[in-house]
């Protein structure tokens, strides 16, 4: 089975210290005011002092390298794609021109247009660190080890072990557009309203819908040329055109 890199998060262990958010910014040189990952708090009831029924819950998040990535569907050039080997959703910076189609197409708001590179940006599981044998910066820095990263298809990996052990109570963020995210929460992380809807920009919809029309028009034109060629070969050119010969 191919790899599926993923994060398995024990949300109960998250203490909202924002260590992962800071580590990510430093490791990836993310511009001021922009973020590749986050921690979102969920308070299910308004806590009454002295009568606290439910503890606030925290959802650490980032790009979830989805099974059905709507961002990939929204990219016209394949600059963002799902790597078949690792299961990661990758951005090819050399091919991305920053058209922004993928940004509203992500129901988790995981993507942004990097102010400095002017291209799409998001979590990439820190490939430089992994090449050096280190875990992604957010995972490495997490003091409670709430974030666990690895290949969930590998039963030996830390993420694989946690994934298998908790199979029955793993949850995913339930967005209105279900993209089958590869970010799993052990137990109920609380339901924030951060699973939205994938919105493909009207321009991309126009391009997709006009594609069969354009192909049809080119096809008709090609048929017209074939009809003319057929007539030329079968009937020959009109006799009256012989006078045009400049021989």
């Amino acid at each position: 089975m191919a790899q599926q890199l993923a994060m398995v998060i024990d949300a109960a262990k998250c203490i909202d210290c924002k260590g992962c958010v800071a580590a990510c910014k430093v490791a990836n040189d993310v511009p001021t005011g922009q973020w590749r990952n986050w921690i979102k708090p969920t308070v299910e009831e308004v806590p009454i002092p002295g009568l606290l029924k439910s503890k606030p819950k925290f959802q650490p998040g980032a790009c979830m390298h989805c099974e059905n990535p709507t961002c990939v569907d929204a990219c016209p050039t394949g600059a963002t794609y799902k790597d078949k080997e690792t299961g990661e959703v990758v951005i090819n910076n050399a091919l991305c021109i920053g058209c922004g189609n993928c940004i509203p197409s992500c129901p988790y708001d995981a993507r942004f247009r990097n102010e400095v590179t002017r291209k799409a940006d998001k979590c990439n599981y820190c490939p430089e660190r992994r090449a050096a044998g280190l875990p992604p910066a957010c995972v490495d820095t997490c003091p409670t080890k709430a974030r666990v990263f690895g290949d969930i298809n590998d039963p030996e990996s830390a993420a694989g072990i946690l994934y298998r052990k908790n199979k029955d109570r793993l949850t995913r963020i339930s967005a209105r557009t279900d993209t089958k995210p590869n970010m799993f929460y052990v137990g109920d992380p609380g339901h924030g309203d951060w699973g939205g809807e994938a919105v493909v920009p009207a321009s991309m919809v126009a391009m997709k819908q006009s594609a069969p029309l354009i192909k049809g028009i080119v096809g008709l034109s090609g048929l017209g040329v074939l009809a003319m060629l057929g007539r030329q070969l079968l009937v020959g050119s009109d006799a009256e055109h012989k006078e045009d010969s400049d021989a």
Partner: protein
Amino acid sequence: MPKVHKRHDPSDIFIHWFNAACWFLLLLTGIGLIRNPAIDPFGSGYPEAMRAMVGGGGNLLLIHEFIGLAWLVGFLLYLVVNFKGALFFLSEVFPVSMGRDMTWMMKKIVLMTLGPKALKMVGLDPELPDQGYYNMGQKAFAQASVVGGVVIAVTGVIMFLSDRSFGAEATGMISWSIALHFIAVGLVFAGLLVHIYMAAISPEERPGFKSMFTGVVPDGYAKHHHRLWWEKIKTEGE
């Protein structure tokens, strides 16, 4: 009476073939840049092959952008050298005489595909109305090329600048540029197929094709295909 008439300046001939070469290369590389199952014209095998050939999609994009800029610079040079010629071209290409030109267009399409008998059968005279410097088919393709070319150039420049100077506020404009670039190229390409057939394959316009190298057409061809222009140069001189 001269046996031939001048039709194209050397700069016209240059820009025509320069444009043809650029369009060919831009089409080849551009189609390789679209990879999305809902859009790519020949399926993903083509973009994969193009990208592998030049060492990745990033390189293909750079090559496409470089040729596109060369195309723009070539056109600007042409305008500097022969602005009068460009104005003459536009003034000949855009005015359309509804009755004469539309009749010509309809009849010509039937003549080229079904033949004169089809027109006689519905009680129409197969003779075509006289045409000027350009016939309506040439005008239609020229109009599509000019309008399409401007759309392609403007959207191309917007996309080129996208990751070089634009910020997040421009993303909507860039996204629309991609869609319009694609649609304009598709429509012009549909016309290009007919243009190439009429000029290079059909024997009817052979002297016109030759004039794209020599710059001149024979008197008989001018009289038969561009009667109004022929009459004009007879009375007014060339």
